[in-house]
């Protein structure tokens, strides 16, 4: 098989299978959790649940990522906050606002959107790679994080890091021929998509469960979340 044929395979049939596993696996994960049943809070509320939920999201999305020193937790977790924040920001920008990725979305969804200039996306991609390196070091040096780091966390890191790295090399035409890098990028993306349903990456979906629960718990007790 030539690199050309391999590329056709990893961005064609394998990508489709990977997408299918990703979507079906994620749907199953969410369905499995919801199907476990929901406990009803019967205690009469003291405050507004809806108000609590709104505040919970406003703080979770609007304040937390940008004001890391709130609530005295920054000092012990500077790397987690800064590198973690840069990682998530960079990841969203690269996946959603990079032109090449937008075109993939367009082919899947049928519509596209304006994107950011390549230098900005490229800068953030480099930021993600640096942030990931910092987070990996942090995983082994910060005592609490080291304690909760196992094979699954390391595997996660590898599965996310490889597409980032190959994508970056590919954009800059470094070391290998373009179609080799493109093939490797697509291969690692496919691997990531297949891995996600088995990993703790779906936290991006369960975030909406936990933040809603948080807001509703604090809101009904008339406490600011």
């Amino acid at each position, binding site marked *: 098989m030539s690199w050309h044929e391999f590329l056709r395979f990893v961005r064609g049939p394998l990508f489709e299978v990977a997408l299918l596993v990703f979507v079906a696996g994620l749907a199953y994960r969410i369905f*499995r959790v919801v*199907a476990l*049943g*929901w406990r009803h809070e019967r*205690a009469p509320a003291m405050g507004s649940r809806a108000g609590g939920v709104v505040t919970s999201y406003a703080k979770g999305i609007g304040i937390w990522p940008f004001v890391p020193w709130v*609530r005295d*937790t920054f000092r012990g977790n500077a790397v987690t906050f800064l590198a973690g924040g840069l990682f998530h920001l960079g990841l969203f920008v690269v996946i959603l606002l990079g032109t090449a990725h937008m075109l993939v979305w367009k082919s899947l969804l049928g519509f596209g959107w304006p994107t950011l200039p390549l230098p900005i996306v490229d800068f953030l991609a480099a930021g993600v790679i640096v942030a990931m390196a910092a987070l990996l070091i942090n995983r082994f040096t910060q005592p609490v*994080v080291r*304690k909760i780091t196992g094979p699954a966390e390391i595997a996660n890191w590898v599965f996310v890091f490889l597409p980032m790295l190959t994508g970056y090399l590919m954009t800059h035409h470094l070391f290998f021929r373009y179609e080799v890098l493109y093939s490797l990028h697509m291969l690692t993306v496919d691997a990531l998509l297949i891995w996600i349903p088995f990993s703790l990456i779906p936290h991006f979906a369960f975030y909406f469960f936990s933040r809603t629960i948080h807001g509703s718990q604090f809101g009904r007790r008339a406490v600011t979340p």
Partner: protein
Amino acid sequence: MSAKTTPTQRALDTFVEETGGWIASQLEACTRCGICAAACHFYQATGNPDFAPVWKVELLRRAYEQRFTVAGRILTALGIRKRITDEDLGAWSKLVYEACTVCNKCAMVCPMGIQLGPLIHDVRAGLSAAGMVPEDLMAAVTKQVEEGSPLGVTDDVFEERIDWVSDEWDVDIPLDREGAEMLVVFSSIEIMKFPENIADVAMILNAAGASWTLSTKGREVVNFGFYEGDAEHTALFVNRVLDAARELGVERVMVTECGHAYDALRWTAPNLVAMPPGVEITHVVAVLDELVRDGRIRLRAGAADGGGGVTFHDACKIQRRGGHIEEPRNLLKILAPESFREMTPNREAAICCGGGGGVIAIKEADPNRYAAFGLKLDQIRQAEAGTVVMACSNCRLQFLDGVQHFGSDVKIRGLSGMVAESLETADEGRPS
């Protein structure tokens, strides 16, 4: 529950039984970032990574993965992931009972907003099913099941104590009065160790002309089943109070200065047992604030000024988990307008005293408890306060023991006591 099953199996069965979407979705949301450790007073005070809230919940997460997730089941079947053992339960028992007050401060710093306190409570539920509750705590639970009180407040002791308080402080204390509007339930700590609280509350309610009563049946509100994490015991103890409320036909039940008991009766009981319809569960700080606002009692403004700085300690179950954050401050701003100052952090973000959640009842937990209290003492010093007021007797026990341990001369006060001695009509009838 079969006696043949191993402790681990009983714990796992409880975890499975308790795991609904509410718990599962939060376990799934955890990114293992470890930020929660920065909120935990036990971790802050000791630097022991085992005390990180995320690690305390690890047992529940492992059980969840091994039972409910595809990856977890495959890895466990292949032997790659270790099965939970009885030794694990023993280790986690030390963590969740002796180094956690279930104060839920960790939930406030979690970027995902996970309610770590309730999740740790579920770890306790599993451990209690496995018989892995620390001996001291279990002895208190058993005593409450058998005698009605962890501190030995039997029928006779209760009536004797109430009689004595009534005589000593010269105050009317109605007992088993049917048709009263409000049932007042004290904690055993107040009955046995802070009897002046009973006199103070009685004096305030009498001054307000309130229709209230104590009950010999629901004579105390403390709930060691809730500390233990056992639903049956929790239900048994809340039902004693609720049955008394039903029999006396009251409209409200007022929990006095006790935090965990308030959480159990106000927020947890409705999910466990049938509540008497139309009966409101409230806390003494809310009632005191209401009496002042409605003009039913008048306080001498500035009565607590002039003796150095006064600060308020937020109890995790009454303020952060109970919502009564402003009421005590409203009162203190009347009593000590000049000298009231806040500790940092305060209100819902305050750190726990270190004695809650049953920790103070466990001798082995003493080093953790004192270490955590050290943080609180630093905050008191930084606020330059000579008096700390609180509305939780369990906190108060911890504060009294803690200041003695550290040789501090900070004065520890209950809020009801401060209000009682500042009543405009209280010039007579209070010898102390």
